């Protein structure tokens, strides 16, 4: 299991880096799907099968497909790809890269202070549902409102 965790982690990391350095949108999207699926595996390993399922279905499935459709609508061709290559100059990366390195160091510094091992306990769909529609009901309602708002906004924005 541990092996699976590290393996999936490595896949997720490599796929993610590929996303941000890729010049082709569709390639990048495929790498992103791989990264998401890898994370889904990690969820599974961590004892959250429901989350893993949702990650695979909603994230990697629905959302990424949405991306794909939009890419098709935009129909970005070779010109865009050349442009991307021109934009990906190393000197652009230096400043943000350094800053973010500092951030990463800070984050890791914060995170490694506690040495606790996790023994994954599987949380089933049933428990989750009880929680969701129990104490978290208000959050669910809010989420539904958010989705509705997103729906309406997207409809308006994409309209001609």
């Amino acid at each position, binding site marked *: 299991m541990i092996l699976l965790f590290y393996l999936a982690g490595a896949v997720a990391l490599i796929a993610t880096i590929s996303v941000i350095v890729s010049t082709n949108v569709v390639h990048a999207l495929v790498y992103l799907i791989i990264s998401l699926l890898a994370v889904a595996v990690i969820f599974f390993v961590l004892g959250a099968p429901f989350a893993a399922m949702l990650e695979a279905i909603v994230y990697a499935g629905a959302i990424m497909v949405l991306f794909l459709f939009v890419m098709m609508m935009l129909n970005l061709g070779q010109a865009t790809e050349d442009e991307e290559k021109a934009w990906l100059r190393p000197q652009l990366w230096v*400043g*943000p890269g350094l*800053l*973010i390195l*500092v*951030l990463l160091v*800070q*984050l890791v*510094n*914060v995170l490694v202070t506690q040495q606790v091992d996790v023994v994954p306990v599987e949380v089933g769909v049933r428990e989750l549902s009880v929680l969701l529609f129990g104490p978290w009901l208000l959050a669910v309602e809010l989420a539904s409102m958010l989705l509705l708002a997103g729906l309406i906004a997207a409809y308006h924005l994409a309209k001609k």
Partner: protein
Amino acid sequence: MLEWIGLLPAFPLAGFLALVLTRGKLPRRIAGVIGVGSVGLSFALAAAITVEFLGSDALSHTQVLWTWMSVGNFTPGFSFYLDGLTVVMLLIISGVGFLIHLYSTGFMADDPGFARFFSYMNLFVASMLVLVLADNLVLLYLGWEGVGLCSYLLIGFWYDNPANGYAARKAFVVTRVGDTSMAIGLFLLFQQLGTLNIQEILTLAPQQWSEGSGMVVAASALLLGGAVGKSAQLPLQTWLPDAMAGPTPISALIHAATMVTAGVYLIARTHVLFELAPSVQILVAFVGLATLLMAGFTALTQRDIKRILAYSTVSQIGYMFLALGVGAWSAAIFHLMTHAFFKALLFLAAGTVILSLHHEHDIFRMGGMRKKLPVAFWSFVIGSAALTALPFTSGFYSKDAILLAALEQPQYGTLLWLGGVLGAFLTAIYSFRLVFVAFFGDDHTQDAHAHHSDDHGHDDHHHGPVKEITGFVMAAPLVILGILSLVGGFITVPVDSVFGVHEEHHASTLVHGFMIAVPIFGVLISYLLYSGAPQGRVLQQWLKSMRESAFGGGLTRFWFSGWGMDALYNLLFVKPFVALAQLNRKDLIDQFYGLLVELARISNRAIVLTQTGYLRWYAISLIGGLVLVIGIGVWA
């Protein structure tokens, strides 16, 4: 009758309201009847009240109309107080006022602002009556300011000429300086005595203050400030000569007979305070003396018929102040009365001259009017005789009383007396100079007009033939005032009970003789100098050479300008004030706030530079901030 005292100012006030509310729509005849009639009613009532009051044994009568305001201990009433002094003032104001109103119906007959003129006149009479009737100083102040307002309105009556407006404003502002001093005096009196009722003040003051104590000196000095402003005495005399811009009946009523003597009335009314402050009282005498001499010298050099009379008014009020200053209260009031008669007469006669000569003011463009304007001529002769105090005219008795009282002043008696006599001598010269230049000699009316002083602002300078304009309404007041100027000296003013003393002055025959001789000598000199008589050729030559010499010319110009007081005040007060006002027109404080705004704007421009519009930049700033905050959290 006495309880109808409230109606005295009510009649003219009603006249004012009637004329104002109809806004000049009334026919002239009716407007005139309202204007004159209301004052006439006041006079009739005043006469009746006088008869009743003098017939009774009462020393005073108080009539409370209503409580004006009641705040704490401060409860001035709208209440009138009648005693001998009030009675004299009432008769002068309503009587002379009535005559001048009557005269005005003729003088102003062709003026488009006929009704407006009479409305202001009526308001003036009402205010003046309130002034003299008031039983407390606040109500007196109401009348005091009211007459000042009417004076302003009437000086600027012909408003389309900015010069008149300037004169009017000058009159108001300069007297307001005095009024403010008086107001402060009122505050001081109230704070110290807790009342502003005049009679109470007069009773309380001697109990509260010892003679010459600081408070009473301050209070009486402040009141003197008010009196000096209103009565055009040094150092606030500059407004009166300019006030001649108003129609001539105004000059007669307001700037000769009544309003300008309000200062004299005020000091006489509050005489107890001045008696308690001998230093201020002697100051009053010296103010009067200085003013009468200064104005006398100035009058010698004036060319404008009305300005000569104006300076003579200033000078005569100087005599009244001199009288007040030496404690000759009733002499002052007596002179006030006779002066009202003869000065009103002189002004009205001058009005006739001016009107007949198509608004000519310069006496050197008149000449030989003796035959053409007989009524005016005789009026002038009588008036000038009384003004000069020739024997047996009214002015003789009043001025005599003042000079004798001055002589009796223990400390400075001789000095004051000599000054007064010198003033009398000057009076004789300048008043008969006017008579001789304007009415004798050759006719100069057709001389080329190098400049003209025209108080109408009308541009009709085609001089028609000279014809005296005297209807009944204009001649009758002249005749009555002429008679009064002659015999007014035999009237006794019933004021002894008010001042608590009966004044009688005795002097040696030598002094008397001297005082009779001086004016006559003055008239003689004036005759030799100005009538063009051959006997006076030497003197005339001397005067001419004096005028042409550098010193004499400079002195003439200095006197002509009223001793340079106008220029001085201009330099000291007006110019700095205007300059300061113009300098700070934009308001320094506002500019300070403007500076704050500018500072905010500059910092805004600096901060705006960070707002590039690039998403990346914002994200980086965000992360930078995040790193900073975490950094502080982790390592600090």
